[in-house]
């Protein structure tokens, strides 16, 4: 167990008073950054980067990663309280977190999210510890076709999830793909759907869309429903937090499944956002309480949060071992590595074991500190919901507008977010699901690039998607997931005479 010995050396590096203090500071800064939508972990980390120039690389990376953990936790807070995802990866947390908070159980929702996130993160770090040397070689096996297969699985798991009209799911997903194509195309270098508007040449930021669709869209809906806000009932006692923490192990099946999905998507190029969506979709499909998803079901919070955080931790591994960042924040950190004079790559593990294992050890500590700190903030955040809607409503609007502007300092983005707010409202009124739209926006251009790269590599032959065991297995699983609803319906239809009706209903307010 060479890794274990090295991990212990890593703890010796990471567990100095100086480094523990850095972790706490990083986590707190990350929380602030994560709570503000638009600012997000990548921006926060790049703001902090100049401060690290004068630090030694180990302290520097500990500061940046701790901030990342803090931001990942903070991102869920606004998802649950206001239906505004602070981070792209916490979009799926809104589906059940927000309904639960509206039922007056904000404390429970937040505690569930943070505890399961902590468990997810720790699983991710354990996977990194055990598999670090193997992952680099495994990730090398991913060519364009394999990349596409990963995305295909994420999409396939989602199509089955939509219990409502498959037509509406498809429309929503296609609109998402269209939004993802805006900007300069990687493969041809041509600009697409930009209508010669300068601000569109960089594409539509996913964060802008999410702030509009979820935050502003929900606000419009709440206003129409008569300015009711159930948060007033939120109870604020420590016992609720402790009771909820004790409740989490009950969802162990969801925890294990979600952590596995998360680690898989973090190591492969899927990333935390896709991981949280996929985990939510599969949770809904396979959980016994699946039909309650979207109505404030605890498992609907546990599933995306666990996956999000295990993917977030695992995403650091391809960055260190290959120099291919698994998430936007990892990309910023990789920039930092190069400025500190380190080159990410397969040799980093042997040339700078103190750095790599110090970092991995700090991930255990950092996440532990983050969970404790973040649980301590729960009463504070839940208290906000006690304010009447006439106060909270304008506050949400301001947060949304500032968030939209912060993404790229474009005034145009504020209008774009407002437009997305109206789209979100219309979607909900007409009962179109938002989740497929969002997923297509996140993964659309990546999936498209991978598909076209694969086609270029194979000279146009689709056989490349079944050319080896790895890609064939993934495509096979994807097709199975895609057909699963059909199989289920046929099966149930044959046995009981009619398909289950609960799903369609459950979907009503989910996305």
């Amino acid at each position, binding site marked *: 167990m060479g890794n274990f010995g090295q991990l212990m050396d890593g703890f010796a590096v990471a567990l100095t008073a100086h480094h523990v203090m850095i972790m706490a500071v990083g986590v707190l800064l990350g929380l602030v950054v994560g709570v503000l939508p638009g600012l997000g972990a990548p921006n926060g980390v790049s703001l902090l980067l100049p401060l690290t120039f004068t630090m030694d690389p180990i302290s520097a990376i500990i500061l940046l990663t701790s901030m990342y953990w803090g931001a990942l936790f903070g991102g869920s807070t606004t998802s649950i309280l206001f239906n505004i995802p602070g981070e792209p990866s916490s979009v799926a947390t809104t589906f059940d977190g927000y309904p639960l908070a509206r039922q007056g159980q904000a404390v429970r929702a937040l505690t569930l999210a943070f505890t399961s996130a902590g468990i997810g993160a720790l699983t991710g770090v354990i996977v990194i510890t055990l598999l670090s040397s193997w992952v680099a070689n495994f990730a090398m096996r991913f060519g364009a076709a394999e990349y596409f297969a990963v995305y295909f699985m994420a999409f396939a798991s989602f199509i089955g999830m939509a219990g409502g009209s498959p037509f509406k799911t498809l429309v929503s997903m296609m609109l998402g793909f269209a939004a993802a194509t805006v900007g300069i195309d990687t493969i041809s270098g041509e600009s697409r759907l930009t209508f010669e508007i300068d601000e569109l040449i960089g594409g539509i930021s996913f964060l802008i869309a999410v702030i509009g669709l979820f935050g502003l869209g929900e606000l419009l809906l709440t206003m129409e429903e008569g300015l009711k806000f159930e948060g007033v009932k939120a109870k604020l006692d420590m016992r609720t937090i402790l009771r909820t923490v004790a409740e989490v192990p009950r969802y162990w099946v969801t925890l294990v499944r979600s952590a596995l999905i998360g680690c898989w998507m973090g190591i492969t190029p899927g990333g935390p956002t896709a991981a949280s969506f996929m985990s939510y979709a599969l949770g809904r499909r396979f959980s016994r309480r699946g039909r309650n998803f979207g109505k404030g079901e605890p498992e609907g919070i546990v599933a995306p949060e666990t996956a999000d955080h295990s993917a977030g931790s695992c995403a650091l591994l391809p960055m260190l071992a290959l120099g291919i960042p698994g998430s936007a924040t990892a990309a910023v950190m990789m920039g930092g590595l190069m400025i500190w004079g380190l*080159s990410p790559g397969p040799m980093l593990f042997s040339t700078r074991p103190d750095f790599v294992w110090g970092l991995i050890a700090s991930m255990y500590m950092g996440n532990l500190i983050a969970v404790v700190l973040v649980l301590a903030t729960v009463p504070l955040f839940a208290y906000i919901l006690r304010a009447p809607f006439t106060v909270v409503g304008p506050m949400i609007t301001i947060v949304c507008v500032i968030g939209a502007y912060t993404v790229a300092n474009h005034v145009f983005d504020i209008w774009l977010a407002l437009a997305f707010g109206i789209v979100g409202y219309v979607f909900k009124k007409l009962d179109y699901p938002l989740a497929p739209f969002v997923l297509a926006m996140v993964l659309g251009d990546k999936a498209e690039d991978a598909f076209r790269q694969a086609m270029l590599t194979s000279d146009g032959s689709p056989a490349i998607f079944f050319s080896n065991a790895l890609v064939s297995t993934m495509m096979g699983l994807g097709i199975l997931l895609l057909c699963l609803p059909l199989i289920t319906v046929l099966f149930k239809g044959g046995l009981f005479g009619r398909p289950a009706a609960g799903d369609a209903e459950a979907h009503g307010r989910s996305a």
Partner: protein
Amino acid sequence: MPKHALTAFALTLSVVVPTAALAEWKPNRPVEFVAAAGPGGGTDTFARVVQSALSKNELLTTPIIVSNKSGGSGAETFIYAKSNKGDPYKLYFGTQDAYVLPLANKLSYSQKDLTPVAAMVFDPFILWVNPKTSGIEDVKGFIAKAKENPGQLKLGGAKAKEADETLMTLIEHKTGVDLTYIPYKSGSEAAIQVAGGHITANVNNPSESVEQWKAGVQKPLCVFESERLADKTVIADGMSWNDVPTCVEAGIDVKTFAQPRTIWAAADIPPEALAYYTELFTKAAGTPEFKGYQERGAQIPRLLTGDAFKDFIKQHEATYAEIYKANGWLRAEQ
């Protein structure tokens, strides 16, 4: 317009004439460095290294903020420059993209919207393969294999119709082979695809593939420079950068194809500010931080400012325009 020109003239008079001595200008509030690439990309690293060199050596004492505007392959940065005409507190970091992007795409900025400040260093290009999966050991082997399988050899690079693809078309012209280009989001991504054996070759800056070389999954075939790289420190297989032959030596007649790391300001910034920054970046190029960055990237230390830089731009743009024309990549109205 005439009104504008008049104001500008009056301003010039009032600013330049009384304080005739140049280099009087000094920033008194934060300076923004806008990188025309996403975090972790080559241009981003460049901007941040300059930032750290300036602040660590206290060459610039006001805060420096680095932001990324990578949209539209970096065009977003230069469009942003256009909207900040005359603002000396914003500098724009890029490559040749500043003047090459408008060749192929209809963009709302042109070179007139930018003031060239400096080219601080040049990144050479290298042709890489994975010797194990491709069985290619040198340029001769590469050309032979490409001739055997016309159109079958896959060469990867960053983005479409930019430096990497341009270089590939040059290789094709000079050697008469037919390759297939596969664009990826970044050069490092293409390098990993070669290392994993999914594609045959890639063209890249040295720093993007050096770790794969050390791990034995990539091998440099030749460098697109007129002279070999200077660094003689052994890196892998008993070879140093200096042991990599030039492509001309090895049989591909492409003399030099280096990528400048450039810094720009918006149009119409005060001449004192330009003079100040020119001196500032000249100093920055001599700092240990920047030297370390050059060595790690096996870059070619060559600093261009003022007229020398302007001449270089003119000539470099013409070279690109010629290749773009031959490839049919120029945008419609040209």
